[in-house]
């Protein structure tokens, strides 16, 4: 098939790849790489009898994922060493949290920068400790971008490590301050789960809220298949725990994210057969189909297709993040500099 559904099917039902011919595999590999899901796919199909070339490619993808996992855990450990004396909870987010907590969502996941969440009133101390004790420094940003980050975003301007060349993003909440939903950052911190080494991860319901917020608010739905795969894996890891769905429903309300969480669950169910709860997921809406078409918009070369649809989503995601006037100012400043 000529869209990303080949990848979705392979993730959902790994044995289905046995019916692929080499052209099917070629497309699957390019799509999985483009969607940053090659590692996840490679672990899903591990152990299956596959064509020799596919076995090699999947082994390469696992090797790459293993490298990213090790690097992510090490960056977290170095942040822990730099921040250990501060006595503030340091909460790992996204991919690093999944691998550190040993969750299924972390298996084979591609991981970029280190993202951490700390209480807002600890931001300055955290920033100072990372720079003075940890060896991180500012990525060269000009004044405008810097002020922009500090005034409107949910994170410090990114820091990069002097020696290791790796970035860290320090957040104090999970959405920009200009976004319409205002997640309860204090509750995120209060409910976070400590690990043996002293670092924390978000409570499982909050992890799902974060992934859903990220899906619809941050970017143009790019990376959506991976995001929904995270949500699928998280639900499967936790849905049998007593009271899980009730808590998820409550948390989503509390963070003003009930709609994104509901839609994310419905999309994940449609794509990956995720076990979901009808009350939290809500009833199907007209927009769901549009989102699905957007998520599938990739051809067998790994190219994005359906460009106009993508552009509509990009505008939309900018509107979500910034009130209109501020957006105009932001774009204008960018144009002038270009």
């Amino acid at each position, binding site marked *: 098939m000529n869209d990303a559904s080949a990848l979705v099917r392979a993730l959902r039902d790994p044995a289905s790849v046995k019916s692929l011919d*080499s052209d099917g595999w070629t497309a699957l*590999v390019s799509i999985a790489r483009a969607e940053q899901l090659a590692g996840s796919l490679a672990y899903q199909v591990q152990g299956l009898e596959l064509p020799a070339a596919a076995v090699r490619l999947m082994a390469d993808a696992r*090797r790459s994922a293993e490298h990213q996992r090790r690097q992510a855990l090490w960056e977290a450990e170095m942040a822990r060493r730099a921040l250990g004396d501060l006595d503030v909870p340091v909460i790992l987010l996204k991919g690093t949290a999944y691998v550190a907590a040993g969750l299924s969502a972390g298996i084979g996941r591609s991981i970029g920068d280190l993202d951490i969440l700390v209480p807002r009133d600890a931001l300055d101390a955290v920033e100072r400790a990372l720079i003075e004790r940890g060896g991180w420094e500012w990525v060269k940003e000009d004044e405008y971008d810097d002020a922009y980050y500090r005034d409107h975003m949910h994170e410090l301007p990114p820091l990069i490590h002097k020696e290791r060349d790796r970035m860290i993003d320090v957040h104090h909440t999970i959405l920009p301050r200009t976004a319409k939903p205002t997640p309860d950052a204090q509750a995120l911190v209060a409910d976070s789960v400590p690990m043996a080494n002293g670092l924390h991860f978000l409570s499982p319901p909050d992890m799902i809220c974060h992934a859903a917020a990220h899906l619809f608010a941050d970017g143009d739905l790019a990376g959506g298949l991976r995001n929904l795969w995270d949500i699928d894996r998280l639900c499967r890891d936790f849905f049998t725990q007593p009271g899980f769905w009730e808590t998820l429903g409550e948390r989503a309300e509390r963070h003003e994210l009930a709609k994104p969480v509901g839609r994310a669950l419905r999309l994940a169910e449609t794509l990956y057969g995720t076990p979901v709860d009808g009350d939290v997921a809500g009833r199907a809406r007209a927009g769901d189909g549009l989102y699905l078409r957007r998520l599938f918009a990739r051809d067998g*070369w*790994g190219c994005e297709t359906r460009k106009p649809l993508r552009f509509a989503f990009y505008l939309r995601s900018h509107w979500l993040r910034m009130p209109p006037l501020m957006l105009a100012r932001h774009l204008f400043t960018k144009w002038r500099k270009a």
Partner: protein
Amino acid sequence: MRHEFRLTVGPVGFRIGSDWREPLDRLAALYDGYPETALPDFTVRLFAQRPWRRFIRPSVMIGGDYMLPDAAPMALAHGLLAAEMGMNLQMALGQRRYLLLHASAAEKGGKAVLMTGASGAGKSTLSALLGERGWRLMGDEFALVDCETGLLHAFPRLVSLKNEAIALFEGQVDARRFGPKLSDTPKGTIRHMRPNDEAVAHMAEPVKPALLLFPRFGHEAAVRPMGAGEVFVRLTQASTNYVALGEAGFDALSSLVKTVPTRAIDYPDTETALRLVEQLWTESSL
């Protein structure tokens, strides 16, 4: 993608898609006889920035499974170069099976000489010249080390001759082996040259690395020993995936440094360099 061409170079398969036919026709002619691949390791895409740019002042964007976010487009007349750069990019960003060294290599008697060093050191030209003088060219740009066996795999893409180096081969080798002369590329004038039949016929045969050289152009002829620590550091710098391969990469590289004799060579002209290589090769096989 409208047009497609597939090929295998050494142990690596590529699929190249293009919005235009022309660059792929050139590739197909120069890579004639290279094996096809059913399930390629990497996909390269040559595409127009905007749909109408296929026709109006066409410029080629280079993409693929692995991409650089701000790669500048190239003129369609340089499409062949764009395709080669696209393949290089996939290797540099995505290769996870072999330790990739930015080095040239040539084989004789079942063993290989590896040459690496800063760009402009002449490693590409030297390997290509060796390839015309009784050696088998294994690659002028990348060498692939198998982390399990320590053997060197060939990667004989088209040789990318630059500026003065072009004249060393024109008139010397079969004219059908040359691509078009590409003027005013970001690297000056470039002309691609197909490796000879020997190099293509034996490209699937890995061999043991037996000599490692760090050539340097523009100095009086000299041969210097190098400390193993320095060699190790310079090879990590010459590798695009050393860190990503983790312990396997460490083992492969440290044992390469421990077992393969290494020399730095300075040379004022290519004939002197070739003489030095042959001389060191004879000494190292004693």
